[in-house]
């Protein structure tokens, strides 16, 4: 048992810590040579809006979730996203998850493949998006990209070598509703997740609002001007399961978010979050670094001509 924990602490630490840092370095190098691009992304970490990736654009994002524990050890859970605009109405995304629990160990915790579809081709007051995701993760996953059912901080108190033995094959669906109004984006997500191993459906929600600090652009290129910052707040949590649809015993969080969209195409995001119930983590801190490779699809297509 001790040897196993040591191995987690040592060898596999590479997966959770070194790889994200290496990729961050590569991202910075790519950013220096790639054409500048900046999309219209919302600053949220958990909530989705109806804005999909532009067709042919590949977005790479490194994010992390730090959380404090009442019982057990605090942890940091980095993940990498590869998001591609396959069509104007279809975005596909791959996640690679990892985590490092202090005084315990680090490991790769699995992958997710998500797809988002816009069924309506025009913009409306409320814009629906259908979301389907397949997850192949283990029980040690701590990215908390969604909170559903009775997810709570107690789930993250178990040591890695124990909980990592549990494999989860899950289907997650979301109904995303999103509106843009006078510079604000307001988004609501309704989540239903099913572990394919004979578990009940688990439900959750995420709601958010955000707005650029300045609506009109200035005429000159600038890094620190208000037009490049988007501020907002999101709230998310679990809603029980099909066996027990209730708020009692569920976790809920509120988290201000701030995004800095630099003209170079790099976006930095930061979000401190606070748990609202006894079952929630007391404090979360998320950060993200994003870079978009616009024209990626065009370059790949050119290989086939």
């Amino acid at each position, binding site marked *: 048992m001790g040897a196993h924990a040591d191995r987690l602490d040592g060898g596999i630490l590479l997966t959770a810590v070194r790889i994200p840092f290496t990729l961050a370095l590569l991202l910075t190098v790519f950013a220096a040579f790639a*054409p*500048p*691009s*900046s*999309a*219209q*992304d*919302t600053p949220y970490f958990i909530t989705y*809006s*109806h*804005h*999909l990736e*532009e*067709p*042919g654009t*590949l977005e790479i994002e490194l994010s992390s979730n730090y959380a404090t524990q009442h019982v057990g050890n605090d942890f940091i859970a980095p993940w990498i996203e*590869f998001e*591609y*605009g*396959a*069509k*104007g*109405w279809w975005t*596909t995304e*791959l996640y*690679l998850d990892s985590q490092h629990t202090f005084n315990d160990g680090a490991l*790769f915790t*699995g*992958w997710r*493949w998500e797809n988002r579809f*816009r069924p309506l*081709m*025009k*913009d409306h007051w409320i*814009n629906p998006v259908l979301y389907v995701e397949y997850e*192949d993760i283990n029980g040690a996953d701590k990215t908390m990209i969604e909170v559903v059912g009775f997810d709570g901080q107690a789930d993250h108190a178990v040591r890695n070598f124990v909980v990592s033995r549990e494999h989860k094959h899950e289907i997650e669906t979301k109904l995303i509703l999103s509106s*843009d109004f006078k*510079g604000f*984006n307001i988004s609501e997500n309704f989540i239903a997740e099913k572990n394919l191993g004979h578990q009940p459906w688990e439900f959750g929600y995420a709601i958010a609002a955000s707005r*650029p600090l300045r*609506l*009109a*652009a*200035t*005429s*000159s*290129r600038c890094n620190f001007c208000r037009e490049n910052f988007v501020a907002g707040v999101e709230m998310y949590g679990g809603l029980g399961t099909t066996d027990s649809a209730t708020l009692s015993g569920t976790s809920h969080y509120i988290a201000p978010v701030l995004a800095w969209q630099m*003209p170079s195409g790099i976006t930095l995001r930061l979000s401190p979050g606070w748990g609202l119930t006894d079952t929630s983590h007391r404090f979360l801190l998320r950060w993200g670094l994003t870079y978009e490779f*616009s*024209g990626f*699809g*065009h370059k*790949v*297509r050119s290989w*086939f*001509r």
Partner: protein
Amino acid sequence: MRRLSFPLVLLTASAIFAAAGSAREKKSGDDRGVTSAIAQAPLATRDWQNPYEGQPDAIAAGKKLYLRHCAECHAKDARGRGRAANLRLPGVQNATPGELVWFLRNGNLWRGMPSWSGLPVERRWQIVTYLKSLRR
């Protein structure tokens, strides 16, 4: 490693599938597609007034936004590239500012033009102001 390689294969396959699918699509490069898409704008949009019309600051801001969001597809000189329309052609330049700002909000998702409703309407007007300045 096996757990890591499968998603990478999946990602590569998805990218190749999506890219190869797009490669089979017909190239247009002219303004037919954008003209018909703009023609779907409601009549009321023709009466929308551009709050920044002709303002030099708005043209400069619009150019900055254009280079940031649009130039990768439509080219820096707005003459189009591949399937992306030439924005200097009559189909675009004869449209009213209101029709263009409506089109930017809605896009033409089936033909690959994204919706830019995530940009505040003030910035969409600035982009339209810049596009209209190209007519001169």
